[in-house]
Structures are given as C-alpha cells and as structure tokens.
C-alpha cells in the first residue's frame, strides 16, 4: 500500500469518527434543550395519562441509552422522524430542499470558485498593473459587502427583468421543455448571481496572494531558466503549488454552501435548505432542525475528507 493510500485510509477513518461524534452530539444537543416534543404548549389541556401515552408512543419515556441506540437504528433506515410542523417525514422534506439548493450551489458557488480563482491568478501574474488593482479592488468591495444587502440591491435593481422569488412560475401554462427551462433560468438568475458575487471575492483574493507567493518560489525561476513560456510557468509550475489553499477554501465553502445560503434563500424565497432552516427555527420544528444539522454536519465532514484526498493527490508531501 502506498503512502498516499495509507494517508487516505487514515483520513477516512478520522472522518467517520468525526461524523459519528457529530451525530451523537446532535442527539445530546436536542435532548439537552429545554422542553421536549410533549409539553403543555404543544398539547394544551392534556391529562397526565395522555402525556404519558404520547411519550410512550414517541419512545421518549425510555432510558437515554436505549433512545440513543434507537436513534442510530432509525438513522440507519433513513428515518429522521416526523416534522412537528406538517407531520411529514423529515427526510422527504429535506431531500426536496437539497434538490432546490443544488442548482444554486452549482450555478453560484462552483462557478464563482472557478472564475474567482482564474481572476486571482491572472491578477497575481500582473501584480501592480491597472488590471490587477481593478480586480483586487472589486474583489475587496464584494468581499466586504453584507450579502443580504447585496441581495436587496439585486432585487431593487434587477427585479424588473428577473423574478425575485421562488424557483418557478406557478401559473406557467406552457409545459414544453424550453418554456420550463427559460422560466427556471429566469428564477435562478438573481440568487445565483448574488451567491456568485459573494463567493467570488475571497477566492480572487486568496488565489492572488497564493499565486504571488508561488511565483516567487525558486522553482519558478528554474522553470523560466528551462525556457518555458509564460503560460506554462504561470499555470503548470506556479499555480500547481498555489492551488492547495484554494482547494482547502473550496471544500470548506462547498461543505457549508450545500447546507444552503440562509440569507440569500430568505431574500429570494428560494425553498432550499437555508429557507427550510429558517422555517424550522421559527416553528421550533426540532426533528426538522435535527435533520438539517445532521445533513450539514455530514456534508462538511465529507467535503473536508474530499479536501484531504485532493491535497494528497496534488501534493506528494502531504502524505508524509
């Protein structure tokens, strides 16, 4: 087994351990919160017998250890419980929310990561030029702008041309592919642009500084001494070592972004994971919240693991 494979296995092990601990923590957290599923505000005028019966029905009269075991047992069956709000399975609601968040994630975050990185690297190559100063200034401006404010600006400025809420027009009559596609594209435009602008800043800045550092490395001089052209020096020699911090930032960003953009989704009423979180919080919908937290935790852990793997692939020194 190579050093790399060993490294990846070790990281997989620790990722699984962290996931287990995080899931256990969310179990403890939600039981440590004041109040449980059955209290008088939720079931007014209940007799003690009725309360007892309900507690039994929901299994919360059992010892904590048993509950803990049952919790994992139902997790293994994909059962996240029923939402307090609409008595629907949490898993189903969550999956719909995730399905709505994914296009935003791809069109907003992923594209911004790629564009931001390209812009940052180009800016770093021409350090001090007018283009570099323009790009860096723009990235700084976007980075320091509160996202909810940026979202509102977009709504105010562009909602004449693009719808500012929802994923689709509920009154759309034409069900042809192109009509539906255009409608969806119109709806996703503003939130996706908003997320892209928000994510662009940090990536352009990190890519720029990391590229500057890499360009100053001695091996870049070696590459130039070898007669390589600029493009090869900038991308294959310098960027190849500058990419590591960008990978770290990308996996962190993606891990959290898949949990939804609470602010952006709220402003644009985009029914993704972020909006689901807001709704669950305001309805004190614990099962739903627990499901969302579980999902975010696991995706953060998964993306971190992915980041570790990519590091090991990109930099042979990491596995040492």
């Amino acid at each position, binding site marked *: 087994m190579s050093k790399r494979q060993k490294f990846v296995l070790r990281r997989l092990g620790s990722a699984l351990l962290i996931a287990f601990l995080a899931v256990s923590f969310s179990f403890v957290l939600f039981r440590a919160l004041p109040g449980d599923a059955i209290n008088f505000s939720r079931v007014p005028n209940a007799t003690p017998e009725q309360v007892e019966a309900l507690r039994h029905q929901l299994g919360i009269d059992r010892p904590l250890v048993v509950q803990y075991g049952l919790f994992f047992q139902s997790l293994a069956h994909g059962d996240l419980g029923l939402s307090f709000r609409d008595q629907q399975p949490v898993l189903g609601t969550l999956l719909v929310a995730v399905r709505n968040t994914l296009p935003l994630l791809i069109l907003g975050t992923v594209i911004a990561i790629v564009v931001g990185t390209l812009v940052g690297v180009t800016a770093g190559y021409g350090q001090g030029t007018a283009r570099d100063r323009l790009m860096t200034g723009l990235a700084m401006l976007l980075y320091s702008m509160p996202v909810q404010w940026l979202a509102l600006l977009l709504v105010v400025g562009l909602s004449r041309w693009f719808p500012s809420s929802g994923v689709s027009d509920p009154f759309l009559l034409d069900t042809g592919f192109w009509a539906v596609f255009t409608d969806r594209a119109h709806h996703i435009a503003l939130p996706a642009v908003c997320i892209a602008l928000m994510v662009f800043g940090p990536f352009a800045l990190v890519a720029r500084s990391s590229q500057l550092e890499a360009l100053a*490395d*001695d*091996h870049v*001089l*070696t*590459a*130039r*001494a*070898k*007669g*390589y*052209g600029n493009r*090869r020096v900038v991308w294959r*020699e310098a960027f*190849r*070592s500058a990419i590591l911090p960008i990978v770290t930032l990308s996996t962190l960003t993606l891990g959290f972004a898949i949990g939804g953009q609470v602010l952006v989704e709220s402003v644009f009423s985009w029914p993704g994971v972020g909006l689901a979180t807001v709704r669950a919080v305001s309805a004190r919908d614990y099962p739903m919240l627990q499901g969302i937290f579980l999902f975010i935790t696991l995706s953060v852990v998964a993306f971190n693991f992915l980041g570790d793997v990519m590091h090991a692939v*990109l*930099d*042979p*020194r990491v596995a*040492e």
Partner: protein
Amino acid sequence: MSVLDIRGLHVWFDAPDGRSAHAVRGVDLAVRPGERLGILGESGCGKTTLILAAMGLLPSFASVGGQVVLDGIDVLCDGEKSARTVRWTHAAMVFQGAMNALNPVHRVGEQIADPMVFHKQCSRREAKERTREVLGLVGLPASVARRYPHELSGGMRQRAMIAMAVACEPKVLFADEPTTALDVIVQAQIGDLLYSLSERLGLALVLVTHDIGMIAEHSERSVVMYAGVIVEDGPTYEVLTAPRHPYTRLLLEATPVVNRDRPLVSIPGSPPRLDQPITGCAFAPRCPHAFEACAVRPPLTGDGHVAACHALTQGRLS
C-alpha cells in the same frame, strides 16, 4: 569564437519609489567553449545578477543595457521568444539550494524529461531513456526518476538538478553557488561532479561562488568582481597566488587557511551603495593604496591576466 560573449553589460534594479540600484556597471566577459571560469566576489557584488542577465532571466523591474550573445544568439535584443529557445538548450543553470529549485509537486524524472520534450529535442519515450542516462551521468540510480524532490537528500537533489541541467546538452552551464547549504563532503563531491561533467561533455562552466577553494580546484580562469564591475581576470593559479588588484589581495588574506599561522585580516569599510552614482574606482574608499588618480575609473590592463587598478599600472604596488 566564444560561446558566451557579454559586452558593456549594465543592470539597474528599479525600486518603486523611483530610485534604482546600478548592480552591474559595465562588464565585458567572453567565455570560450569548454572553459571553466570562476566568478568570485562578496555578496551583492553582482555575480548572480550577471549570470541571470546572461540568460535573460532578470525580473521585470530590472533594466538591462549592453549585449549578451549566447552561442550566436543575442539574448537581450532578439526578444523573449528567441531567448527562450536558447535557455536550457544552449545554456543551463544550477541554482543554489536545490531544495527549492526543484518543483515539489512533480517527479524528478518528469522535471528532467520535460524540457527535452518542450524544446522538441526528442519524443517523450526518448526523453525517458535520456533521463536514465543523465541520472547515471551524475551518479544517481535510475529509480530516482520516480521520486519526488522531498524524498531525496540535499546532495541527491543537487545531483538531480545537475542531471536536469545537462539533459538538453547545453554548451554553457552556469552554477550559482551550487554547493551552499550542503555539507563539506557533499560540497567536494558536487564540485568534482561539475568538473568531470564539463570535461566529458565539453561544457563551458561558469561557477559563481564565494568559496575560493572551489574556484581553486575546479576552474582554470578566475574573475573577481567588486561593486558590479570586473576588477581582475586571469588564470586561476595566477590570480590566487599572485593577485594584482588590491581588493583581490585583501579578499584572499581575509580567507581563513588551515595549517597556516597568519592573522586573519578584514577589509575595513563596506561595499559602496549601488543606488548612488559611483565615480572612479569603487574600491578606492577602502583601498590602502588609493591616490589621486583613483578618482577616474581604471580600465582593465594587462596581458592574459588583467586588473583594473591605477596603483598597479603606475607601479605603486609592491
């Protein structure tokens, strides 16, 4: 016919605040094919700048004047594109501290083979073959090709760097302090390796160092630089045993010698600031033999072994 011909080379480093440092102040230097030349001088005297300029590798904030002809190609005037075709194929370079000079994320073999393919000297397969060959040439096993730089010791890395540098069969090899950061035994091995490669491949070797011992052992001709100019140039044996320029004399006396009981002298003062104009001989303020004539910059005079010193030409040096 010289393989490297530098004429009237000037280099200025421009600072963002508008000032500039005149790092190389008019250097003429011709290197014959197969010649082994040592460039000696203290830190900041322009040695490294000189050889970087010779390959057209100075950073963008440097301005260069003069002429550098490498193997018939004008490196400075024919534009970056033609300068690129000269690099590595006609002149290659070994840097100090090979740890950082090798790309940490590519295998050593790729780093040796890539330039050959890039300069269209041979196919990828032939380049692999040649990689094995040059690794053997520098005394490394072929398996090193599969390793990453961080898996090699300092000496092995410098050997790999040298293998890389000779792979494209250049005619000139610049070595910029190739043995710093290595232990003494390895230093000697690397020195010997460079010497024997230069002999076997008919390679002109330009050795930049402040290690006088290395120059004494591995070069036939020595050039001494001070404050961006050449102050002495001659056969190594003569320069080291019968130095002509007062600076060379003091430099040699300032070098510790094992088994000889003599006081170690230091040269008073410090090298001149390069961001201010220097008139006359740059060494005059520190020179024990300085007199009125030194206010004018001395030319290099002599036959075969030249030095730039008024006191010397006027017979004032004992």
